[in-house]
């Protein structure tokens, strides 16, 4: 018994001892907030072109930011790929990221990158409505063209957005509507909207997919996700935009401060603006910010053609915690 116990404890302790070692020889480890399928394609293209391996964990924007923060004394990943720009701003404000001017820095408009080089935009996502055409017909409704349309009494329990606590998509929505209607107006709207919401999902892309399979009638999601569901998955969806203007995200990249593989991460960072990477993203219906010489998919939504609400990212980043707590109180109060 005695011997057994000792050997168990030795085993347990040796497990403790075998922690991650010599990270320079290991594959580059990153966090990503892009959808699993596109990250796989990006990573495959990168490995093919450079011979460097990449490992990733897919987390929602909020989860990724929280994880980078909990791990700040011992960062596991060296780069965060994708995810709403606001959260990149927020983790910059918390001092969790490192500045880096990648090789295509000058090709990016000033509004779509951090002045100090802490983050850089990859593509823009425009918030839009996804409606299930079958369900719309059944309810006798037309596809929404205004935020107000979502408050229709017929839509009770039929609208889905994600939970702003875990998803950047919905926080973008909150920030945009506050810019447009002021805090009181926006929260009044969300309180009314709450009546029609069936569920606040954890991930930002889930609502549109729920609408695609008919679990809800209208969702708010990024246009490129909806276009892809329509084209690639043949989902019975209709895409529309609010005429008042809509919010948008700047999906971005940041280097994580004190990351163990920053050199590798920088190389990957540069490559993300190469024609190969841009083409992979374009094939996924994104419109990359650096898009010279690439072929966009038909029906891709170019943010230049949509009426947008401009949000001050620094402001939105600073206000996130307060606004989301307020949202929780207003919605559930």
């Amino acid at each position: 018994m005695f011997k057994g116990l000792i050997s168990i404890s030795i085993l347990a302790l040796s497990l403790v001892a075998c922690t991650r070692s010599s990270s320079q020889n290991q594959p580059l480890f990153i966090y990503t907030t892009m959808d699993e399928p596109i990250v796989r394609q990006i990573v495959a293209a990168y490995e093919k072109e450079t011979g460097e391996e990449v490992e990733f964990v897919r987390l929602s924007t909020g989860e990724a930011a929280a994880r980078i923060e909990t791990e700040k004394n011992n960062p596991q990943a060296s780069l965060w790929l994708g995810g709403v720009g606001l959260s990149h701003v927020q983790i910059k404000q918390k001092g969790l990221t490192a500045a880096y001017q990648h090789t295509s820095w000058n090709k990016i408009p000033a509004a779509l990158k951090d002045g100090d080089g802490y983050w850089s935009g990859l593509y823009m996502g425009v918030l839009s409505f996804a409606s299930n055409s079958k369900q719309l017909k059944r309810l006798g409704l037309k596809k929404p063209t205004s935020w107000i349309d979502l408050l229709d009494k017929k839509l009770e329990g039929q609208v889905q957005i994600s939970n702003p606590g875990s998803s950047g998509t919905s926080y973008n929505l909150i920030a945009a509507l506050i810019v447009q209607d002021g805090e009181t107006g926006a929260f009044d709207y969300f309180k009314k909207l709450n009546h029609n919401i069936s569920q606040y999902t954890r991930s930002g892309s889930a609502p549109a997919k729920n609408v695609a399979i008919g679990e809800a009638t209208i969702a708010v999601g990024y246009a490129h996700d909806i276009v892809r569901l329509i084209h690639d998955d043949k989902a019975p969806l209709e895409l529309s935009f609010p005429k008042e203007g809509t919010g948008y995200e700047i999906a971005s990249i940041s280097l994580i401060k004190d990351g163990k593989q920053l050199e590798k991460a920088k190389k990957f960072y540069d490559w993300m603006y190469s024609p190969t990477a841009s083409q992979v993203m374009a094939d996924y219906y994104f419109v990359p910010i650096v898009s010279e010489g690439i072929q966009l998919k038909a029906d891709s939504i170019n943010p230049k053609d949509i009426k947008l609400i401009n949000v001050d990212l620094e402001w939105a980043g600073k206000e996130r915690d307060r606004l989301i707590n307020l949202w929780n109180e207003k919605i559930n109060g």
Partner: protein
Amino acid sequence: MSSFGWIRRDPSIAISSTIIFILIAIFVLYPVYCSLQLSTSGADFWSFPTYRYVFEKPWLRRSLWNSLLLGITTASISSIIGFIFAFVCVRVQTPAKNMFRFMATLPIISPPFMLTLSMILLFGKSGFITNELLGLENFDIYGFPGLVVVQSISMFPIAYLTISGVLLGIDSSIEDAAANLGAGGWKVFRSVTLPLATPGVIASWLLVFVTSLADFANPMILAGKFDVLSVQAYLQFTGMGNLPLGAALSNLLLIPCITAYLFQRYYVGRKSYVSITGKPKLYHREMASTSVKCLLVFFISLISLFIILLYVTVLAGCFTKSWGIDYRFSLENFAYVWDVGWESIRSTVLISSIATPIAGTAGVFIAFLLVRKKFPGKLALEIACLLPFALPGTTFGIGYALAFNQPPLLLTGTASIIILSFIFRHMPAGMEAAKASLQQIDPAIDEAARNLGASPVRSFKDVTLPLIKPAWFTGMAYVFVHCMTAVSAVIFLVSAKWNHMTVLILAQTEILRFSAASILCLILILIVLAAFAIIKLLLGKSPITSS
């Protein structure tokens, strides 16, 4: 003899119990302390600002209330279903008994939210039954009623296993006496059988209650706007980065869990263990009249059919192109799962296989100490070892994430952190199983060996160990199932290299890759069944049944 005489007589006990205490202190108490400390940080210890915040905010208060409501409802329904299943399996002669037994254990070995998945596939707004077959257009499965159904079906087996153990332990001679004195079947049941089974029923109620409170995978997907504490804790912790609030919310779950656990220990007492493994062949009176029997069998057949329906759905989901959009037969999701899931499957099996023998063996050793040896601090040791049982998974996971993210124990992102959490979280299951069977072995056998000159180690190895081998294997079977189906703690600990299948299933469910999620569920069940088959081969009997 001096008060330290026990140390000299058997020094190994002193040394091993000290080692156990140290390990428990590092890997159970310290993480819990970290989580508690975080939730009270920022002000005087006694002012509990975060907790006050929780009780001041109606939306958080409501999620606490919702959790309790859900727990109470699920526990009550599960206990009733579990009791009827147990009663039929133990006390009623039916040809389909083995099938019912299988049905009552199947949900235990499934990933925690698999039933949620099939409920959505069948009864969602575009569900196969509600929409395709019945043409209902606005059936709403999301929320409290749907959650109660899913939790009751997945948790009644806990009640079934506990209650059938107790029913098996009741000697029918008492019931015979009552019947001979002129009591009718119903009266015998009400005045003899039911009171005797009450401790078991209460124990099972509490176990289900605690499981329901800690469950967060089902509510995450199915709760709709019915907010529960475990989900809020997760959102606050990982989504908002509000660590104090997340920790505080999950610690609130600690209070009902520990209360329930202590109540169970006090009320049910130790005696019930003896009956759980079932003494050799007590005689059991056949008590139900034909009509009652038919009614009971009809009831559990309905439940069984429902369970079969849920599992068939998952099976069908595996071969469907895209559930809800395109119901055509397709195998392409298998390729996708292979691509996305192979690494997770491998690491899940590897981690569980490392953790299982360690946790199972440690459980047997500790059980042996507790049952056979007298030493100071025994009660404290027992409580410390059982603590992980009562801890909500989220507290455990958050505690680990906090405690082992800095030197000297820098474990974040490694397999070790998951393995250690599994060992310490699931060891009590193995320990309890071993304890139950040890209590049935007469210490006299052991003493005989000692009198014949065997050392304590030798008598343990040659006499006790062979006798407790079945318990050891059963313990390991439970530990393995827990490791494979764990989600609430492990979701805080997974990394790129060391993902867990349940976390992947949750992610696939959320992005509505129902077919991929179904395939992963199926693979997980097959792995567990394969493990059971191996144990059965080694042991000559099935590891998880009460009889």
